[in-house]
C-alpha cells in the first residue's frame, strides 16, 4: 500500500465530487443544445460496447494499465453518436467501475465529463458526425482523423486533471506529480487508441459494417490483452523464481531463513525515505533480497559457521554472488550493492547510496535477528549504538533506518 498522506478529509472529497458532478451535468446540457441526442441502433450498440469494455478485466503490469478498451469506445462514440450521447454513455458506464459509492458517482461524472468534452472538441475541430458524406481521402483526414486526434488529446488531459484533482483532495498527492504520472503511463498508448477508434468509425459508418466493425477492431486488441496478461504472469513468475534463489541460500544456511526478505523490505523502505527514484528503490530492494546469494559458492560447513555480525571486510562471496547474477539484465541496477555491501565505502556519493543502504539493513538484521553462531542477539538500542559507532554509517542512514523500522511495527515486535 502506498503511503497515504493526509488530504483534506471527507468533506473536501464530497465537495470536489459535487463540483465534478455539476460540471458534468452543465457540460451535458450544453452538448445537448449543440447536438441533441438521437436515439437509434447506433446509440444502443455504442452503449453495449462501452458496457462490455468496462466489464473486461484490465491488465496491469507494474504500475501501468496496459490496455483500456473503454477509452477506445468512448473516442469512437464521439464521432458515431455525438457529444451529448457520449455524456450519457459515460454516465451509464462509470458506476460499473469503483468500489465505494463515492467512487462510482465520481467515475460516472468523470467519464461523462471527459467524454462530452472530447465530443465537443471533436466538433470544434471541424469533425463531421456524418462521415459517410465525406468524399476523398483529404476530407476524411481533415474532418475525421484530425478532429479525432484533437478529441483524443482533450479526453486524455481532462481525464488526468479530474483524476489528479480527486487524488489530491482525497489522499494529498500533488496534482502536478500525479498528472505527469498519468500522462506518462498513457501517452503513447493513447495515440494508438486514437488510431484504433478512427478505424472503428470508418468501418462502422462509411464502410457500412455497422457495429460489426467493433468485432474486427477488437480482435487485435484482445491479442494485445492476452499478451499483456501473459507478460504480467511472467513478471510474477520472475519474482517467484527469485524467491527460489533465496530459498536455495536458506537451505544451505538455515539460520538465515527470513533474513533476505527482511533486509529487502528494510532496504526498500530506507531507499524510499532517502528519496531515490522508483527504479533505484526497486533495485535496492532487489539487492537486499539477493545480497547473500554468493554464499552458495561456499562449502555448506563454512556457511553455517560464518559470523557476519562484525564489520569484517574481505569476504569474497559477495563478488561471487554478483558474478552469478551478472548475466541477468534486469538485475543490473542491483549488482553494485550485492558486490559491495560488505566493503567499506570509499565515497559517500549518491551513487553508493544503495550499497550503503543494503549494508546498514543487512547489519541491522544480522545483529538483531540472526546473531553470530552461539551468541545472543542484540537488543534494538544496542544494535543501533553498534551501527552508529561504525564510521561509514552517517546520520542520514541511521535516520532512514529509524523511519523504515517505524513503518513496520511487526518487525520490531519480533525483536
Amino acid at each position, binding site marked *: 500500500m502506498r503511503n497515504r498522506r493526509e488530504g483534506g478529509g471527507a468533506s473536501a472529497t464530497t465537495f470536489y465530487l459535487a463540483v465534478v458532478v455539476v460540471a458534468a451535468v452543465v457540460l451535458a446540457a450544453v452538448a445537448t443544445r449543440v447536438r441533441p441526442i438521437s436515439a437509434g441502433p447506433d446509440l444502443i450498440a455504442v452503449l453495449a460496447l462501452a458496457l462490455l469494455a468496462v466489464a473486461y478485466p484490465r491488465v496491469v503490469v507494474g504500475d501501468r494499465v496496459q490496455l483500456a478498451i473503454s477509452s477506445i469506445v468512448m473516442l469512437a462514440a464521439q464521432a458515431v453518436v455525438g457529444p451529448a450521447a457520449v455524456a450519457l454513455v459515460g454516465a451509464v458506464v462509470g458506476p460499473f467501475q469503483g468500489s465505494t459509492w463515492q467512487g462510482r458517482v465520481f467515475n460516472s461524472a468523470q467519464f461523462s465529463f471527459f467524454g462530452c468534452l472530447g465530443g465537443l472538441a471533436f466538433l470544434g475541430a471541424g469533425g463531421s458526425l456524418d462521415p459517410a458524406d465525406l468524399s476523398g481521402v483529404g476530407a476524411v483526414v481533415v474532418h475525421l482523423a484530425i478532429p479525432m486526434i484533437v478529441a483524443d488529446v482533450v479526453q486524455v488531459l481532462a481525464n488526468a486533471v479530474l483524476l489528479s484533482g480527486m487524488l489530491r483532495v482525497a489522499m494529498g498527492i500533488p496534482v502536478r506529480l500525479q498528472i505527469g504520472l498519468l500522462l506518462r503511463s498513457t501517452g503513447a498508448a493513447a495515440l494508438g487508441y486514437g488510431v484504433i477508434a*478512427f478505424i472503428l468509425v470508418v468501418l462502422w459508418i462509411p464502410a457500412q459494417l455497422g457495429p*460489426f466493425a467493433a468485432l*474486427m477492431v477488437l480482435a*487485435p486488441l484482445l*491479442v494485445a490483452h492476452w499478451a499483456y496478461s501473459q507478460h504480467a504472469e511472467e513478471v510474477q513468475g520472475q519474482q*517467484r523464481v527469485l524467491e*527460489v534463489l533465496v530459498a536455495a541460500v536458506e537451505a544451505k544456511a538455515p539460520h538465515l531463513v527470513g533474513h533476505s526478505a527482511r533486509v529487502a523490505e528494510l532496504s526498500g523502505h530506507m531507499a524510499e525515505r532517502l528519496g531515490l527514484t522508483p527504479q533505484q528503490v526497486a533495485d535496492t530492494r532487489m539487492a537486499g533480497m539477493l545480497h547473500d546469494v554468493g554464499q552458495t*559458492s561456499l562449502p555448506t560447513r563454512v556457511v553455517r559457521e560464518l559470523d557476519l555480525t562484525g564489520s569484517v571486510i574481505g569476504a569474497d562471496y559477495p563478488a561471487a554472488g554478483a558474478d552469478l547474477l551478472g548475466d541477468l539484465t534486469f538485475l543490473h541496477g542491483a549488482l553494485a550493492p550485492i558486490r559491495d555491501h560488505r566493503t567499506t565505502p570509499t565515497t559517500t556519493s549518491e551513487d553508493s547510496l544503495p550499497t550503503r543502504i543494503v549494508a546498514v539493513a543487512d547489519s541491522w538484521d544480522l545483529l538483531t535477528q540472526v546473531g553470530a553462531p552461539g551468541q545472543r542477539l542484540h537488543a534494538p538500542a544496542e544494535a543501533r549504538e553498534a551501527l552508529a559507532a561504525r564510521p561509514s554509517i552517517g546520520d542520514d542512514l541511521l535516520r532512514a533506518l529509524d523511519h523504515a523500522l517505524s513503518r513496520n511495527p511487526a518487525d520490531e515486535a519480533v525483536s
Partner: protein
Amino acid sequence: MTPFVRRPQALGSWAVVLVGVLAVTTGLLGAGNLLPTLVRTHGHTLLLVVAIVAVGELLRIRMPSGRETAPLSSAAALAVVFLGRIQGEPTFALESGLVVLVVAAGLAGAAVVRRLRHERVGAPALAARVVGVWVAAGLARGLGPSDGTLWAAQLDSTASQALVALGMVAVAVVGLLTELVLVAGIRAEQQRTPWLAAVRDEVGEAAPLTLAVVVTGPMVALLAPVLGLLSLPVALVPLAMAYSAVRQYARNRETNRQLIGTLSHLTEHGGYTPVHHAERVAELSLRVGRVLGLGDRQLRSLEYAALLHDLGQISLLDPIPDGATVLAAPADQRDIAEEGARIIRRAETLDDVARFVETQTTAYRLVRELGEPVPLESRIIKCANAFDDLTSGSSDPVLVNAAMERIHLGLGYEYDPDVVDALTRVVEDATVGRVDDRSSAAR
C-alpha cells in the same frame, strides 16, 4: 559459401517448395502477359504492398518456443487477396494468380535482404505462405461466377458489408491455416517429431496472433474505399500493438529462462556439479520430450526441471564426487531430489517443476510393478541425467556407446523403454528434436 537457398533436408519441405513454385508458375503462365499493364496501372499500390510484405517478413517474431512467425507480412499478404476499390486509385481487379505473384515478389525481396545479411532464408516457410495466399486468393477471387465471387461482393452496394467482412475473415482463416499446417509439417519433418503434435503447437501458440492477422487483411480492403492507400498503414496499427505486446512477452519468457539458468549455476559455482551439466541435461531432455510429442507448456516445465534437477545438492555437507547422482546411493539420490523439490516449491508457480524434480530418481520398475505415478517428464530427466553423468558431456563415440550400453542394461528396470528409445534416436542424429536450426545456419 552457402547456397542461396538452404537445401531443404527432406521430402516434405521439398514438396511445399514445389507447390509454392507451382503457384508462382501458374500465376506467371496464366497472367504473366498482364504484368506490364499491372505495373503501369497499379504502380503505387503494388509498391506499397510489396514493400510491406517484405518489411513484415523481415520483422519476424521469435516465439518463446523458438518458432518464428511474421504476422505483419501475413496480414499484408491477405490484404492483397481482398483489396478491391481503393479511393484515389484504380480498382485492384486482379486474377488470383497475379495476387500470388505480388505476394511472392515481396517475400522474394525479403529473402534477398536476408541472404545479403547472411541470414537463413527459410525457403520452405516462405513457400508455405505463398501456398496459403494462393488458396485464399483462389477462394476469394476465383470461386463462383466472375460477378459472384466474394471479392466482387464488396463492390456490390446492395450486398451486406458485414456479411462480406465475415466471408473475408473466413477465407483468411482458411488461407492462414493452410500456411500453419504446412509449416508444422515441415517442422515435424526437420525435428523428427510427431506431425500432429507439431500442428497442435503451431496453431496453438500462434492462435492469438492468428486471430489478429485474419481480421487485419479484410480490414485493409474494407477501409480502402474510404482511406485509399492510407488504409494499409492505418489498419496495421492495431496489429502492430499486438505485435509489440507479444514481443515483450516473448522477451520476458526469455529472461525467465535465463533466471532459471542462473539457478542451475548455483550448484556449479559451489563446486557440486560439473560446469554445463544442467544445461546439457536440459537440452537433451527437451529433444527427447519433443520426439515423444510433449506440448509447449510441458516442454517448458520439463526444461526448467531438467535445469534444476541437481539443485538439492546445494545444501550437502559433503559433495558427491563430480556431482554424478547416477553413481550415488539410491537413498542419497532420493534425498537430493526431495531437497531440490522443497526449495523449488517456494514458488507456487513452479509446482509442476518441483514434482518432476522430486520423482526423477524413481526407478521405472516401480512405475510398472507398483503403479507409482511418475510423470513422463521425470522419466525423461532420469534418462538424460544418466546419459550426461556417464559421458560427462563428451561426444566421443566410445563414451557414448558405453553410456548407451549401460542405460540399455537398466532398460525396463531403471529406465522407461520409450524414453530410452527416443534418447537413442536423439543421440544417433544431431538434428532430431532440435527447434533452433539457427545454430546450424550461416550467421
